[in-house]
């Protein structure tokens, strides 16, 4: 009896497996009109918030209902898992067809994995003149074009008007030609806006730096390259020479910029140190939202993340002139890329064109919070901005594009991740107070970067 029962169970299991296998095949064969699927890997940058996921699904429905040959599917990956998941897909021979939205940093991080889209642009005779020039440049490298521009994220100062009013400090100028708006002026204002628990500001002799309740300025969401890109060094946001063989992270401008920050934290007290940052991180709040930071230097993507439901009035102002009398305002940019090992690359290219087309780019950028990289839709986008973020100076957003950092603070360099970590370790020394001398920090960081470059070039021709 037991023997029969066992055989029956074995037969049942075998039959189930066969039927399951056949079922899968039958389902494939019955797929309507053999649409080619383009999987869009989302998670390297923005796009994983629940409302964004919903909006992307609607976008997919829109595409799939209007296209006969191709279907799209957004694959949402938690941001903290993007590297392992993407690399697992690549090494498993299952590369997604499109990846994005990618910042310049994630393009750099996986630079060798991207397809050069130049042949596709040439074959389609695609006119790129409608894209902002800088947006195209940010995707163009000596040996490849990584993707069509989707959006730009210029940077500027977000400021809390209520705190300025309470301190009796004039708002930062919105006039891009006002040369009095310098890093020194920012420091001066920020100190007046920094308060201890007794209400004394950082310029008062009896100010208590151990009990600060309000800071004047914050730029803690960027790494060393982004923090120092605006200070006017010859290589702007790149810590190497143009041939990537010599480390130049100890340039006088970078040292000046880092010392300004170090003094801002430890001497003038208008910037919060690492303790303040970890406190915010553990509480899950951004530097601006709680209303205890008067000026926060960030990008357009912060509009979507941080400018909702504020309990105070806010506006935006240009980033100041650096000590060399130049204005540089670092920029971020997004695109979609095609992994070179992906299947159906032609279809991926078609979807990339659609996502960045004048007809749809505003919708896509509203999901991700970027400025559409096409000039022709600026007016339409402006109307959306007025609806979504009323009362801010939109001119600041568009004008800031002209002052982008070039070479960009996120762009590819050899051993990108390793050099980023080496530099950011230096920044962490300053923020933690472990080392307050910028020259010492950058001299050491530069030596480490040079060592990494030397090791790289020893094995790469």
């Amino acid at each position, binding site marked *: 009896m*037991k*023997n029969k029962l*066992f055989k029956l169970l074995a037969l049942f299991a075998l039959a189930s497996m066969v039927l399951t296998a056949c079922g899968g095949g039958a389902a494939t064969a019955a797929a309507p009109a053999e649409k080619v699927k383009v999987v869009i890997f989302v998670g390297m940058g923005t796009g994983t918030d629940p409302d964004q996921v919903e909006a992307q699904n609607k976008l997919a429905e829109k595409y799939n209902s209007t296209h006969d040959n191709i279907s799209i599917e957004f694959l949402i990956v938690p941001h903290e898992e993007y*590297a*392992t998941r993407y*690399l697992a897909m*690549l*090494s498993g021979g299952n590369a997604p067809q499109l990846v994005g939205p990618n910042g310049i940093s994630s393009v750099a*991080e996986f630079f*060798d*994995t991207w397809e050069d889209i130049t042949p596709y642009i040439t074959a389609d005779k695609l006119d790129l003149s409608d894209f902002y020039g800088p947006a195209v440049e940010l995707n163009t490298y000596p040996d490849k074009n990584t993707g069509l521009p989707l959006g730009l994220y210029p940077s500027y100062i977000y400021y809390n008007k209520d705190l300025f009013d309470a301190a009796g400090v004039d708002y930062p100028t919105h006039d891009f030609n006002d040369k009095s708006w310098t890093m020194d002026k920012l420091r001066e204002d920020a100190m007046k806006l920094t308060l201890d628990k007794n209400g004394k500001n950082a310029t008062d002799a009896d100010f208590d730096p151990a009990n600060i309740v309000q800071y004047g300025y914050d730029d803690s969401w960027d790494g060393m390259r982004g923090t120092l890109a605006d200070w006017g060094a010859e290589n702007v946001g790149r810590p190497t020479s143009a041939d990537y063989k010599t480390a130049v992270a100890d340039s006088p401008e970078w040292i000046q910029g880092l010392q300004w920050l170090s003094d801002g934290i430890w001497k003038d007290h208008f910037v919060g*140190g*690492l*303790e*303040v*940052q*970890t*406190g915010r*991180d*553990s*509480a899950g709040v951004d530097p601006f939202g709680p209303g205890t930071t008067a000026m926060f230097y960030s990008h357009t993507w912060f509009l979507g993340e941080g400018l909702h439901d504020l309990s105070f009035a806010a506006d935006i102002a240009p980033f100041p002139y650096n000590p060399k009398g130049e204005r540089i305002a670092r920029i971020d940019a997004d695109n979609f890329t095609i992994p070179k*090992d992906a299947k159906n690359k032609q279809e991926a290219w078609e979807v990339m064109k659609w996502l960045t087309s004048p007809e749809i780019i505003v919708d896509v950028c509203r999901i991700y919070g970027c400025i559409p990289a096409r000039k022709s839709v600026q007016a339409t986008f402006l109307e959306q901005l007025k609806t979504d973020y009323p009362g801010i100076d939109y001119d600041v957003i568009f004008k800031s594009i002209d002052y982008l950092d070039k070479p960009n603070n996120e762009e590819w360099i050899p*051993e990108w*991740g*390793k050099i980023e*970590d080496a530099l*950011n*370790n230096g920044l*962490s*020394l300053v*923020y*933690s107070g*472990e*080392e307050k001398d910028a020259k010492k920090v950058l001299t050491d960081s530069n030596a480490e970067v040079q060592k990494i470059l030397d090791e790289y070039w020893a*094995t790469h021709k």
Partner: protein
Amino acid sequence: MSSLPGTHRLSLARREALWAYAFIAPWTIGFIIFTVGPMLASLFFSFTDYNIIDAPRWIGLTNYINLFHDDLFWHSLGITFKFAAIALPLGLVFSYLIAVLLNSKISGINIWRTVYFLPSVIAGVAVALLWGRIFDPKFGILNPLLEKIGIEGPGWLSDPHWAISALVIMSLWGVGGNVIIYLAGLQGVPTDLYDAAKVDGATAWQRFRYVTLPMTTPVIFYNLVLGLIGTFQYFTEVYVLTNGTGNPARSTLFYNLYLYQNAFKYFHMGYASTMAWVLFIIVLGLTLLIFRSSDTWVFYEGQLRGK
């Protein structure tokens, strides 16, 4: 037992062996595919320059040689040893003491046992997020408590000199697993030994020192070996708390975090595989040392010393 098809002519022992193999086959196949396979693959990769994207290129012992010239390798190894040297003995003693307390005959003991075991079932990520909040100097609960007894709390996770201490404290919270094992060991100590000791006039301390402690050395040994391996695999909490950076100032750059960075951030998968094998050899060596030393301090009931 029923026969497998075509096995009627086999001897009973042979048939039983076949059945045994059939039953362990799912696990064996899984072990070969998901453990032995990746181990062998990583051994091969450790001799290659492999960036995941391109095919691996054989470079012989280069990764192993480079490893010994890598300052961060030594730095991360030092941090891991430092953490192990503090967290492991502290964890063993702390969990043993709790287990002794939980072995008391007091009312509501099952509730206390549950309370102490509960944290160990919480996922590492959740633990890290929770303790990140507790350690916060301004909004956390630890520093205000310290302030009440006149101690000015440090910046914990933002201070390079205190970050490891913070992680050690955090690790003590998850000793529930050890406690349960110790508790089982304590309850397995024959009561007649205590009775005999009492008859001989042994004090409570003497009963603990000369009965409880020797009789529970097998579980101490077990927890020591597993604790050692676990400590050298420390990763999740520090990855979550530092966003994978090992900061502040690389003070929490544990060996496994540096290994992870090499594999998935710098795409030096060959180098990371080398690191994995070096770690394996280190842990294996330390484990063998503990096994060798166990002859002198682990007592098994029914075992004659030296046999």
